[in-house]
């Protein structure tokens, strides 16, 4: 049994470990380790296309995760104040956002936006007072919208689960002691749901940062980091990709470990 478990962990981690190991290879080979070198990291970090893609990914992930955390939390709180039927509709929508395959989210967002732009852009051109009317197009905004749609649902589900486990008595006590609803929220509710909001934000960030398929459809002429990695993989496997992959892995592992730590906190509090 123990041997089996060891084998499964080896299976889970050995391929990743090899990618990391060969990112430090001074040669170009994937099977012979010639010597230790960090040259591929240097090359990766001085590659302007790669750095642009990284910047796009960071901006998109940060903005979409922030919006997702704010609106998702607001929805989770608001849904506490409505009837069962409204809540069921939203539960269904959140679940749908999470279950619908990414490839379908990407396609349908692309199709809808292209239609909307084909109506809005001529209208904008007609109404614009100046010489060069702004052209709406795919870009940061569309990736953020599509990622945020999904991750906001994720945050709403996480925060809702946390609110459902909160004790009502302490909120009632606060109200009885003449605290305004806002004070009760700030002093009683928020501190208790804060870890789950933060965990939701980190998961949303990680999702957006790692997503390939949705961005592939709606990024327009922009490249996100996974899109860049995907394109370079198709050109051939090189240690430079290993170096980028290692940095991406390190970043998401840090994120998930923090998120898990925060969620753990919640569980011991229950």
């Amino acid at each position: 049994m123990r041997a089996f478990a060891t084998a499964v962990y080896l299976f889970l981690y050995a391929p990743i470990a090899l990618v990391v190991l060969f990112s430090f290879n001074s040669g170009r080979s994937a099977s012979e380790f010639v010597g230790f070198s960090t040259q591929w990291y240097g090359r990766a970090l001085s590659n302007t296309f790669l750095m642009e893609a990284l910047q796009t990914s960071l901006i998109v992930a940060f903005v979409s995760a922030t919006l997702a955390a704010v609106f998702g939390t607001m929805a989770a709180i608001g849904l506490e104040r409505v009837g069962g039927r409204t809540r069921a509709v939203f539960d269904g929508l959140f679940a749908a956002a999470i279950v619908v395959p990414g490839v379908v989210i990407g396609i349908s967002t692309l199709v809808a936006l292209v239609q909307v732009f084909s109506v809005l852009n001529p209208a904008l051109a007609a109404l614009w007072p100046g010489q060069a009317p702004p052209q709406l197009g795919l870009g940061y905004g569309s990736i953020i919208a599509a990622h945020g749609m999904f991750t906001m649902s994720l945050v709403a589900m996480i925060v809702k689960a946390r609110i459902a486990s909160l004790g009502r008595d302490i909120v009632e006590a606060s109200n009885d002691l003449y605290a305004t609803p806002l004070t009760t929220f700030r002093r009683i509710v928020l501190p208790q749901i804060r870890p789950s909001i933060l965990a939701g934000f980190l998961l949303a960030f990680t999702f957006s940062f790692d997503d390939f398929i949705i961005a592939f459809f709606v990024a327009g002429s922009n490249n996100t980091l996974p899109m860049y990695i995907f394109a370079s993989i198709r050109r051939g496997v090189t240690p430079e990709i290993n170096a980028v992959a290692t940095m991406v892995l390190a970043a998401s592992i840090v994120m998930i470990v923090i998120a898990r730590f925060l969620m753990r906190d919640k569980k011991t509090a229950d």
Partner: protein
Amino acid sequence: MELTPKAKKTMVTAALIGPAAIWLFVFMVLPFFAILVFSVGERAPAGGYQPAFTFDQFANLGARAAAFVNTLTLAPIGAIACLLIAYPLAYYLAVKVDPRRRLLLVSLVVVPFWTSMLVRTYSWMYLLGARGIPHVLELIGIENVRLINTPGAVLLGIVYGYLPLMILPIFVSLEKLDRRLLEASADLGAKPISTFFNITLPLSLPGVMTGVALVTILLLGEYLIPQLLGGGKVFFIGNALVDLFLQSRNWPLGSAIAVTLVIVVVAVLLISMRIAWRFAGTRQIDLV
């Protein structure tokens, strides 16, 4: 005009839910409606879409039959393969392992799931590619082994990618198992093996169902694994969709396939929920 407290409360609620509602409507409901409309349209001569009302696209789904066949066979096979590895490990983690080490070992299962699927799939592309395992085999005299771009490679990638997602729900259902039942069974003279088949296994079925349903549903929309490890030879519905939208620019047929994919996903979800309700008390699972 002074607002009544009730009207004020309604307004606050609307302000709280409004942004999420608008976002979901504009970027999920509306887009889905758009592909629904496109799916009954026609392909414009130069590619793209032209309005029509016809079910030709749905009648023409057979043109991409191979993608459907691959997806609908490899997704369940992949889920079962994950289950066969995941169950013993989940059992080990929930029942056998020292509780002090449990948290660490479970975390080690969760972490890969949240790291880049692209990078993890790349690691196998790297290993199975000509300069990876086949090259090492050549050094010891076994030549001309081709691993990448085969159904086996795709299946391996699937198991690697989705194993954590299968382990977690099964682990949760096994961890919640009342140990007194196992003791009672042993006290009544049952052999460990019959305790397992009569008590442990039936009580962990909700976790097994959740895991199989989750993995199958996610696999139905998979793109990266068949793309990178199947090399265009083993392709899924997701790969057909990318081709139809970005290369052959047949948006109506692509939309019809996307709508069909959503219907299949919803059907799998409803069937598995139906089965899960049969078992007493479904359990919530934590993905983090």
